[in-house]
């Protein structure tokens, strides 16, 4: 509750303050606000507010934490990119704060209507963020994101209406039956699949991730997915463990992991590659939904994914001159900046789920959930596609390490960005060796 208010005040003050205060002050203010919200989420007891419409349970706390963390990360490592491309800083930071607030609202409600409000609150700033670079690519990405996002919201809204018609309630887990209820549930899921970038509704992700400014993509991949999965989890779990929704979910998971990973193979642009990989990761995340205790696994995976993909995008943001990151730009990174190359390697290996990095434990936990539910066929397919994934991650790493650079010159990274990325890399490694350290945060008391 307090965290939500802090995020709102941060966004509002930054938006208003941008009119008279220096962009620098706004930037620092937003960072402080996000940091404060992060601390509040870390130590807040479980609580409930607004007549039970806002419930800060362990799941909400964990997912909200991941989303705010992603926003803070995007804020801390984005400066170089913003200056290179002439993006106005205060808008960027203010919009990030607003979007993070939407993510928290979406994660922390058991009410389907409030989820929609959170979804919009999350998405509207993102449409603007995607367009911030003011060039054709950026505007195309924003428009695509906006139009498809509107369709997703419409689907969700339609589903909500049917759900209400069938059950007489907006609460998740309301009892209902018959075709009306089924249609409502399917539409709700479809809307959320959109935001989570799951096939058959994730087609937008590659174009949008590629076109949007790179730090914004960082937040999209790490933060938005977390919020979407929190809502997805509440809807699916509300409908009951092992229920009929497995029948809807299983083919979607299958398509998502297979399509995401196979399409990623053919990419030659790093942001686009990571976009397809984010589709694939949505599939792995959804595996947890089958299990009897999905919340800790999902939260843990989302944290691991946010750290790893965040770090990868953060490295790309340091390379990006505003026209994207073709593999050629990554080539020979080790010569231009050994630190960035090392970070990229850690991030990619963690995304590939290799021990001793945190990505391994994330994968492990969701696979355990699938195994506990007896979904071995899905598990085997997911693991086989994970081998494919390792191939394209390693290929990108090979470009960075084993080929001569295309561009000359040493890459200068700002101290604050270096420090942030170093910290994230440290956590990726440390949590790989001590996975239990943060598990309690996700499992709740």
């Amino acid at each position, binding site marked *: 509750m307090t965290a939500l208010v802090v995020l709102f005040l941060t966004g509002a003050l930054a938006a208003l303050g941008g009119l008279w205060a220096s962009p620098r002050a706004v930037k620092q203010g937003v960072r402080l606000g996000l940091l404060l919200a992060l601390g509040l989420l870390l130590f807040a007891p479980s609580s409930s507010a607004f007549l039970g419409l806002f419930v800060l349970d362990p799941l909400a706390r964990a997912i909200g934490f991941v989303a705010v963390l992603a926003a803070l990360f995007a804020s801390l490592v984005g400066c170089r990119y913003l200056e290179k491309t002439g993006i106005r800083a205060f808008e960027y930071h203010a919009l990030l704060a607003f979007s993070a607030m939407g993510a928290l609202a979406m994660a922390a409600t058991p009410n389907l209507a409030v989820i929609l409000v959170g979804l919009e609150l999350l998405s509207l700033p993102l449409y603007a963020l995607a367009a911030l670079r003011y060039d054709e690519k950026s505007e195309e990405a924003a428009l695509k994101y906006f139009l498809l996002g509107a369709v997703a919201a419409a689907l969700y809204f339609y589903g909500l209406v049917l759900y209400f018609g069938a059950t007489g309630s907006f609460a998740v887990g309301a009892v209902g039956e018959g075709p009306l209820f089924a249609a409502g549930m399917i539409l709700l899921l479809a809307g959320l699949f959109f935001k989570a970038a799951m096939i058959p509704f994730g087609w937008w992700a590659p174009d949008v991730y590629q076109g949007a400014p790179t730090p914004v993509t960082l937040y999209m991949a790490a933060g938005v997915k977390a919020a979407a999965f929190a809502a997805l989890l509440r809807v699916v779990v509300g409908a009951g463990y092992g229920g009929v929704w497995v029948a809807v979910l299983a083919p979607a998971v299958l398509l998502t992991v297979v399509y995401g990973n196979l399409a990623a193979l053919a990419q030659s642009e790093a942001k686009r590659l990571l976009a397809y990989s984010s589709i694939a990761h949505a599939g792995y995340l959804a595996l947890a939904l089958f299990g009897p205790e999905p919340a800790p696994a999902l939260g843990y995976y989302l944290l691991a994914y946010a750290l790893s993909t965040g770090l990868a995008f953060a490295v790309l943001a340091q390379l990006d001159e505003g026209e994207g990151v073709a593999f050629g730009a990554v080539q020979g990174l080790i010569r231009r900046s050994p630190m960035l190359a090392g970070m990229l390697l850690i991030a990619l290996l963690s995304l590939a789920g290799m021990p001793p990095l945190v990505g391994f434990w994330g994968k492990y936990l969701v*696979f355990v959930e699938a195994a506990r539910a007896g979904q071995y066929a899905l598990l085997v397919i997911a693991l086989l596609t994970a081998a494919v994934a390792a191939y394209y991650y390693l290929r990108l790493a*090979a470009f960075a390490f084993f080929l001569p650079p295309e561009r000359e010159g040493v890459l200068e990274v700002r101290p604050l960005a270096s420090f942030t990325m170093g910290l994230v890399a440290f956590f990726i490694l440390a949590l790989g060796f001590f996975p239990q350290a943060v598990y309690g945060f996700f499992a709740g008391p």
Partner: protein
Amino acid sequence: MILWMLLLPFLAGLVGLFLPGLARGLGLVATLASGLIALAALFTPGVAFYVERPLFEPAGVYFAAGLDGASAALALTTSLAVFLALLAVKEVPGRMLALGLLMTAGLLGIFASLDLVLFYFFYEATLIPSLLLLGVYGGANRVRALLKFALFTLAGSLLMLAAILAARYAGGAESFLLRDLLAARVEGPVAVLAFLAFTLAFMVKTPLFPLHVWLPDFHAENHPSGFADVMGTLYKVGVYGFFRFAIPLFPAAFAAVQPYLLLFAAVTALGAAWIAYAQKDYKRLLAYGALSHMGVAALGLFSGTAIGAVGAIFLLAASALYTGGLFLFAGWLYARFGTLELAPTHGLAKHAPALAAFGLFLFLAMVGLPGLAGFPGEFLSALGAWQASPFFTLVAFAAVIAAAAYALTAYQRLFHGPPGKAVADLSGGEWVYATLATLAVAFLGVCPKLLSGPIHEAARAFVAAIGGGK
């Protein structure tokens, strides 16, 4: 103790990555300490230095590690091989040695793990430095070799992860601790599928025909000094994986597919030895020669007898010394001739008699000359295998003829023919290595009991677990 055995090489490697100049010195100290700990474990009956701490308790994962006879023997020869290799190589980048030390930590972890997920953790983690060794310091076609290696290994090991999860959740064990899993074994078709998944993973890492194809490129493209090849040789842990986990966990499934496993092992042993004979490049020759030995070791293990298992683990442990030594020998030749081809090394004994003699000595150990380290393992493997299938044993040990052929070719190359380029004989550091390696290989040959005694104790437990009394 066990923690220190793993931590010291890891820390040495980590420091070495940032301060490459220190890598060799720290590595020597760390591997010496690990070796001594392993040696102490070798003389301790039962599982030495057992540690069990929660690593990820809610997920049923424990840091459970200890060294029984087989693990201790392998940990000992691994530490020793790396220690010697650090002495042997010169003018190599310090970071390369550091990566090797990180790999050593992972390998020791593989041998010490008594929790299935912990085993997987080390098994996969070791892959990262091994890929970097190949990718950063490898030859011209390294990226191709690297992707081949990574793809084979990962496809195998990811399937193994599914099997690991099935081993617990389909059987209802309380955790991934080996003893819990053995107490609640999985039965029926799931067990067969899980065993096959393990089999694929370990066949890649043994390696066994037809999943060996990554191996020749891997060795051919690795750094010419041979250091990375030593590490790669040590990483062939498939036989150990079968011995420790796959077969004891799924004995019924193993019994069902045993004839096919024996077939693959025999084909590997024979085929690889013949292919080795046809090679014109030292590293490829050694790659195939070592592959043939892994086939023999696998044959011994798949016999399901205690004596065969002792032979297999002994062979695995001893080959770390002489196969690694041969790769370093090839590295020394490369430093002198600028090529790894066999052809220009004719008449080497004329200019560099000690170097040639050392090479020949290792070749003879490799083909299993009695009195050297290669013999006890091969002999015991054959004894065990004979009990399971005389036919496959005959097939596999036809490889001995082929092995003699390639070893004699090497002898002929090194000692006869007109003297070629005048090259330097062994230098100071190389003398140290050659002496120590010769001593170690000869010692294990005349006194195999040091390793085979403790291994036998572990092998009895293995046979008891699969329900045999042989």
